[in-house]
């Protein structure tokens, strides 16, 4: 099977991180409005997540699009499952679906004080 080598790295990262966001920039300093909006939704829920900045890694940037069959960044993975991009995550957040989904997946949420 001729699978891009980068897929192995992607699988490894997805396996290591319960909540993983492939994004432009970092969680502290997002470099695209869509990435920022996704970080914001996760932060408001109090979800701890790992962010991978694809801007500094061209191989990963192209690889993740092919891996997920999804043309844009950000991309959210929870417990190995592709959840979606910015629009889906934001919509799920607004309807309360995201909180429900995280709970079902056993992701702990820090309740905001």
């Amino acid at each position, binding site marked *: 099977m001729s699978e891009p080598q980068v897929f192995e790295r992607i699988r490894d990262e997805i396996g290591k991180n319960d909540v993983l966001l492939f994004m432009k920039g970092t969680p502290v300093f997002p470099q695209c*409005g*869509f990435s920022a909006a996704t970080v914001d939704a996760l932060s408001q829920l109090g979800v701890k997540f790992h962010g991978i900045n694809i801007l500094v890694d061209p191989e990963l940037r192209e690889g993740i*699009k092919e891996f997920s*069959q*999804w*043309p*844009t*960044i950000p991309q959210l993975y929870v417990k190995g499952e*592709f*959840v*979606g*991009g*910015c*629009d*889906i995550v934001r*919509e*799920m957040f607004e309807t309360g679906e995201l909180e429900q989904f995280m709970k079902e997946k056993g992701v702990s949420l820090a309740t905001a004080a």
Partner: protein
Amino acid sequence: MPMQAQDIISLIKEGIPDAEVEIQDLAGDGDHYAATVISAAFTGKSKIQQHQMVYGALGGRMGGVLHALKLTTMAPKP
């Protein structure tokens, strides 16, 4: 190169013939759009699959010439 809203609508309708498409030019720069797509073809599909169908209709332009398209998809209300 920005895309015209009309071109986006045509492409989506070509790929999903029964789709009702509404486009908003968010920034007025021909580069940041919001689209709402309603189609019976979405029935029973997950959000991810629905969005993938629209991206498929756009044939690789998404993330390329089309930088920003905020997407909302739904099946028609019964």
